[in-house]
């Protein structure tokens, strides 16, 4: 016999009662009726779900070797406060995030040493081609965006990422429905059957990246995914020659929340693929426990171009490994209005002619 004393309604979660008139369980809050066995089975299944446990070990990272950072300087942007690192031979003159001048603030010191780096695979020429392709065929784009001299300012930046590895146990409840239609002479009928679907199991994740720079929005770095992480190599300072590196200013601990969100969603999506035979499946409740969650620090290659247009700042990025190019572009309102009015006129005349032909013929 079950030791659950108070049963919850599978529909709304309220305390459900036995209705002696119906000889069924009926929820006093949402009025849904259930068989006794259904409520019992649902409550037992729900009670066996374990609470969330989503903790990670601290970022590994390593300390810098002696003299390794001697030839590296830190540059600070006076405008946006961005801090970038470049070796002496490369130097840096303008900020890759906002385009304003940077000044040297001193020798590089402190911070963690990256575990991995994915070296740049695509050069500046490829980045410029990528940008031109990105701008091509965009009718509403302001003309000024296609000026060559500006495109020249695209910069190669190693962006700091935290990589999260973990095994997870997931226990997820989905609400699923199946719908059936039929008709008789007078009515059309729709029958919707509701189910609670429980799935539990194990799933492992390798190197989920979360951007460790506050200067680049997570949206932009996530849009540049995926990176081929198998091509990552152990970090060595010579890889930085010719490029600049962004210093991480969002810690691994602060990035955990984003990693957890993505693990939860991925588990819900992955286990949903095992829920078959329904018309709709919606996750209702998920419990995730992580085991052996580890964090690594890595640098990923990104070509960045910063543009200011009519007082707004636009940042474009190209994945320096795969060539994927992203960046929201502004709409030129006058071009938009011209197209809207022109197309309205064209379609209106066409609609009028069609209506007239249908009427007359």
């Amino acid at each position, binding site marked *: 016999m079950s030791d659950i004393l108070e049963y919850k309604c599978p529909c709304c979660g309220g305390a459900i009662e036995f209705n002696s008139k119906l000889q069924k369980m009926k929820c006093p809050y949402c009025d849904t009726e259930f068989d006794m066995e259904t409520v019992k089975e649902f409550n037992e299944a729900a009670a066996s779900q374990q609470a969330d446990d989503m903790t990670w070990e601290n970022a590994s990272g390593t300390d810098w070797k002696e003299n390794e950072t001697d030839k590296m300087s830190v540059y600070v942007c006076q405008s946006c406060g961005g801090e970038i690192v470049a070796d002496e031979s490369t130097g840096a003159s303008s900020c890759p995030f906002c385009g304003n001048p940077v000044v040297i603030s001193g020798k590089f010191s402190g911070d963690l040493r990256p575990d991995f780096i994915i070296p740049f695979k695509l050069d500046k020429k490829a980045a410029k081609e990528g940008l031109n392709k990105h701008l091509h065929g965009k009718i509403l784009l302001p003309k000024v965006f296609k000026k060559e001299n500006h495109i020249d300012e695209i910069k190669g930046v190693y962006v700091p990422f935290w990589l999260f590895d973990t095994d997870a146990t997931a226990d997820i409840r989905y609400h699923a429905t199946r719908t059936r239609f039929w008709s008789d002479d007078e009515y059309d009928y729709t029958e919707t059957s509701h189910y609670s679907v429980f799935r539990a199991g194990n799933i492992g994740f390798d190197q989920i990246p979360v951007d460790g720079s506050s200067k680049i929005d997570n949206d932009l770095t996530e849009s540049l995914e995926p990176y081929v992480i198998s091509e990552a190599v152990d970090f060595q300072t010579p890889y930085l020659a010719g490029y600049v590196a962004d210093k991480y200013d969002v810690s691994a601990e602060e990035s955990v929340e984003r990693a957890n969100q993505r693990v939860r969603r991925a588990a819900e999506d992955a286990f949903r693929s095992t829920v078959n035979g329904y018309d709709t499946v919606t996750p209702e409740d998920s419990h995730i426990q992580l085991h052996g969650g580890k964090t690594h620090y890595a640098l990923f290659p990104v070509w960045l171009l910063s543009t200011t247009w009519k007082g707004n700042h636009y940042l474009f990025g190209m994945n320096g490994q795969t060539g994927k190019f992203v960046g929201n572009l502004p709409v030129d309102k006058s071009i938009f209005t011209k197209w809207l009015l022109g197309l309205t006129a064209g*379609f209106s005349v066409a609609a009028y002619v069609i209506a007239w032909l249908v009427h007359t013929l």
Partner: protein
Amino acid sequence: MKKQSFAVMLAAALSVGSLFPAALTVQAETDDNYEFLPRVYDAADLLTDEEESQLLDRLDSLSEEYDFDVAVATVQSTDGVAMNKFTDTFYDDNYYGLGDDYDGILFMVSIGDREWHITTHGYGMTVFNQDGLDYLKEKVQPELKDEDFAGAFNEFADQCEMFLEQAATEEPYDASTLPKEPFSLMWIPISIAIGFVLALLCTMGMRAQLKSVRSQESAVDYVRSGSMDVTRSNDIFLYNTVTRTAKPKDDTSDTGGSDSSHGGTGGSF
């Protein structure tokens, strides 16, 4: 109306009179001892006296001009008789129609049933073929729905005059010769609205091209291959709901005549 012997008239009055007894005694006119219904017979009292007398003058002069009975009648109820059958019987039993073939058309409204029917007989079936009846139906139906009965009956009179005039040329109206509604000016704003919506969809599509930054909510790309296994799987049926919606009813029932000697159309309002 065709003059009939009183005995025949009386028999008719008795047979149909049971359906609407008040009408015959109150509304009938006397003509040389024979009782005939006037061309406007408003037992359901849907018209004012003024509307009734104007309509009667109109129908009388129209009927005399073309030697063709154009009449209107209203009743409270058909007492359960199908509207087309009721109208046809009413026409026959009250000796509507002129000439040897009882040529004529009768527009009947039963207010209690909210139904109407137009029946044709003799030459009427030539003047108003099926295309013509469909056209007539479209003309009177909107006014009936608005309960503008005087409007519907006057529209009926106008249309009958037009049809009779055309039929006098030996070529009654059919689908190809019936006058078309003038192309409505409403199509200008409607076309502009359609054009604007289509243009907006196109330009919004162009706008969407400019957005390429989207967050990745899931880490599903980083699932270690072969790492997933399902340890528990159970599906519990909770409950089901059934909703039903009434199928739209066809309001064109009871069209056509009840037998081959009548043509007709009708509907509800």
